[in-house]
C-alpha cells in the first residue's frame, strides 16, 4: 500500500517536473527576444523584415531619402548597434564613410568583420565598373567597383537568400521558417522580374542620370545610360559640363533624364528645358519616395519611370 502510494507520488512528481520543464522550455521559446538587426540601407531592412518576420527587430541607418554615400548618423545608432545581433551592409565601400567608425565606437564584439554578426553582401558580387586606375582625379571613385547592385532584382534575390541563411545561423531553431520566408520573397521577386523585363523589353531606352547609379539595372533590363550630370562621381557640374551635356543630348537625341530623388532639381530642370527631354525623379532605395514602400514597390516605381 505504502509502496503503491509512493509509486503514485513519484509518478505524479515526475509528471509534474516534466510538465514544468516543458512549460519553462516553451516559455523560453516564446519569450526569446527578437534578433536585433541593423542594416545600412532600407532595402536590406526590407529584406530582413520579410525574412525574419516578427522574430527580428530591424533598424536601417539610412532612411533612403539621402545620398547613400553621405548618411547623416544619429548618436543613438551607436547604442542600437551596441546591442544588435546582426549588422548587414551592401559593401563595395558604399558605407565606408560611416560604418567602420560607427562599429568601432559601438564596441559590439559580435558585429566585427569576420564574426557571425557581420554580413557584407558585397563580398559575393561580381562588381561592375571596377576602375582600372585608382586616382581621385577621376572623382569619388569606388576602388571595389560600383556598389549600386541593389537595383538588380537577381542580386536582390541573392541578398534575400544570404540574409535568410545568416538569420538561420544565428537562430538555428527558426532556420526552417527563415528559409521558407526567404524562398517566398525570392519567388515574389521572380514573378515581378518577368513583368518588369516585359515592360522595358524592346524600348531601347537611352538616358542620362545624375550619378552612375544604374550600371546593374542597365545590365538586367537592357536600358542604356549615355552620360551623367556629374562630370565625375561626386563632383557637381559646372557651366562647361552642362553646355557639353546639352549639345551631346541634342546630337544623340537622348530624351530621358533620370534624377535620383535626393539630388537637386536645378540642373536637371535646366537640361530638360533646353533639350526637351523628359525629367523623372526616381527612388534608388526603399523609402526614397512615398511610393517606394518596399523593394517591390520601389522597383515598380523605377521601371515605370523608365517607360515614360
Amino acid at each position, binding site marked *: 500500500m505504502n509502496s503503491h502510494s509512493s509509486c503514485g507520488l513519484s509518478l505524479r512528481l515526475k509528471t509534474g517536473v516534466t510538465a514544468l520543464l516543458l512549460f519553462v522550455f516553451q516559455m523560453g521559446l516564446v519569450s526569446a527576444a527578437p534578433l536585433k538587426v541593423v542594416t545600412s540601407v532600407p532595402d536590406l531592412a526590407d529584406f530582413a523584415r520579410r525574412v525574419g518576420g516578427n522574430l527580428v527587430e530591424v533598424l536601417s541607418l539610412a532612411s533612403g531619402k539621402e545620398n547613400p554615400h553621405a548618411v547623416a548618423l544619429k548618436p543613438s545608432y551607436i547604442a542600437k548597434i551596441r546591442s544588435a545581433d546582426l549588422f548587414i551592409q551592401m559593401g563595395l565601400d558604399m558605407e565606408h564613410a560611416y560604418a567602420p567608425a560607427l562599429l568601432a*565606437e559601438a564596441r559590439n564584439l559580435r558585429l566585427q568583420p569576420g564574426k557571425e554578426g557581420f554580413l557584407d553582401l558585397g563580398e559575393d558580387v561580381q562588381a561592375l565598373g571596377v576602375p582600372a586606375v585608382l586616382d581621385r582625379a577621376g572623382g569619388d571613385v569606388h576602388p571595389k567597383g560600383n556598389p549600386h547592385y541593389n537595383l538588380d532584382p537577381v542580386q536582390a534575390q541573392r541578398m534575400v537568400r544570404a540574409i535568410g541563411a545568416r538569420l538561420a545561423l544565428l537562430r538555428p531553431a527558426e532556420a526552417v521558417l527563415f528559409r521558407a520566408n526567404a524562398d517566398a520573397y525570392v519567388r515574389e521577386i521572380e514573378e515581378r522580374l518577368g513583368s518588369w523585363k516585359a515592360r522595358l523589353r524592346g524600348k531601347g531606352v537611352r538616358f542620362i542620370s545624375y550619378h552612375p547609379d544604374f550600371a546593374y539595372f542597365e545590365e538586367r533590363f537592357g536600358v542604356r545610360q549615355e552620360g551623367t550630370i556629374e562630370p565625375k562621381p561626386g563632383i557637381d557640374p559646372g557651366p562647361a559640363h552642362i553646355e557639353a551635356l546639352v549639345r551631346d543630348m541634342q546630337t544623340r537625341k537622348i530624351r530621358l533624364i533620370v534624377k535620383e530623388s535626393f539630388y537637386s532639381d536645378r540642373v536637371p530642370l535646366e537640361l530638360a528645358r533646353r533639350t526637351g527631354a523628359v525629367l523623372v525623379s526616381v527612388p534608388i532605395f526603399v523609402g526614397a519616395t512615398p511610393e517606394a514602400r518596399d523593394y517591390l514597390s520601389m522597383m515598380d516605381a523605377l521601371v515605370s519611370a523608365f517607360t515614360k
Partner: protein
Amino acid sequence: MAATLGISASTSLAASPANPDLEVLRRQIDALRGDLENLQQQLNQQRLAQPYAGAPERSKKAEALASASAGAFSERVGSGQGNPRSTPAVGINPSISVAIDAVGSYSRKQDNVRLTPRDAEFVFQANIDPFARAYLVANAGSELAPAEKQGAFSEVTFGLEEAAIETTALPFGLQIKAGQFFADFTRLGKVHPHDLPFVDHPPVLEQLLGGESKGRGVELNWVPAVPYYIKLTFGAVDGLGAERSVLGGFDLNQGSASVFEAPETRGFGSLTYYGRGASVMELGESVFLHMGANLLRGRDEGTRTLWGADAKLVWRLSGGSEAELGGEVLSGRQSGTLTHPLDGSGTGGSQGKGGYVYVQYRIGKTWTPGLRFDFVRSRTLSETDSTGGAVADGLEATDETLRAVSGYLGCQISEYQRLRLQLTYAASSQAISGESKRDLQAFLQWTILLGSHQHALTP
C-alpha cells in the same frame, strides 16, 4: 551552367570509361568548357576596363589605355610574375593618409603677413591583431600666430603628434588606449586643427590647455550598453596640453608671461588625472543635443585644476543643410613656483576662465558661414619672490581680459578639399596697468586630404 555541365559529364564518364560515344561527348564538352572560359575571361577584361565614372564621353585613347592596363595587370597576375608573396603584404600594410592645412594670415596691428603650412599631418593606422589597433600621427607645421614675424622656412617643425595603441576586443564596452594621444578632454581639444569648425582653436583652449589636449599616458573609456549614447573617460597622463600653463600669454602679449616650474622627478601623485562624461540627447528626428563635462587635476607644472562643460545643438534640415550652435566654458587654477623669462622666480598662483560660443549654418554641402564669440580672463593671484614678501621685478600681478569675435565662411569644394576665410577682431585689456590692445586678423585656410583620412568618431 558550366559547373553543372562539368559535374554531370564527369559523373557519367566515370561510370563507363570505355564507351566511344561518351568519349566523343566528353571531347565536345571539354571544347565547350574551353570556349566558355575564354568568353568569361573576355567579359572580365571588359568589366575591368569599364570605369565607374560619370563622364559622358571617354576618348578611344583612354579606353585603349585602360584596356591595356587591365590586360597587362591580368597577365601579370595570371602568369605569376613579380613576387607572389608581396601581394598579400600590400593588403595588410597600414593605411596611410595625409592632411595638409595651409593657412595664410594677416595681422593689421603688426602689419604682418604669414604664409605657412600650419599643419601637414601624416597618419598611419592598422589593426595589430584581433585585439588591438595602433595609429601614428606625425606632423610638420608651425604655430598659428598672425602677429608674429615669420622667417622663410625657419619655423616649420616636424614632430610626433600621436602614437597610440588601443584595444578593440575588451568586453563590456571598455577600451584602453596608451601612448601619446589627444586625450578625450574638452570638446575641441582633441580635434586636429584641420578638422575644427573654424580656422583656429578658441582662445580659451589655447590659454588654459595650449590648444590641443595632447598627453602621454593611458586612457580608459567606457560606452555602457544602455539605450542612449553615453561615454565615460578616465585618464592618467604625464602632463596634458601643450607646454602652456594657465598663465600662458595671448598672441597679443607674447613674451610677457611667467611659467610654472615642473618637478625634477615625478611620482604617481604628480601625474595629471582627468575625466570626461559625454552624452547625446535626440530631441526629435533631426535635432541633437551633445553635452559633456570635464575635470582635470595634476601636478605637472605647479598644481593645476581645470573644470568645464560643453554643449552643441545640431539641427539637420532638408537638402543636407545643417545648423549648429555650440559652446564651451573652461575654468582653472594653478599654483606653484614661478619663473619669469627675464626676472627671477617666486611663488604664486593664477587662475583663468573663459569660453566660446559659435553658430554656423551649412547650406547644402558646399557653403558654411558662421560666427564665434570668445571671452578669456587670466590673472595672477599673488606673487612673492624667493627672498620673501616683496614682488619680484617682472613678476608683477596681471589681470588680462580678451574678447574676440570671428566671422568665417567655409567652402567645401569636394569631400577632400576645403577653403575657409575667417576674420577675427580681438581686444585685450590689462586691468592693473590700464593698457589695452586691439587687432584685426584675417585667415585664409586651404585644407586637403590625400588617401582615406579618418579620425575616430567623436559624437
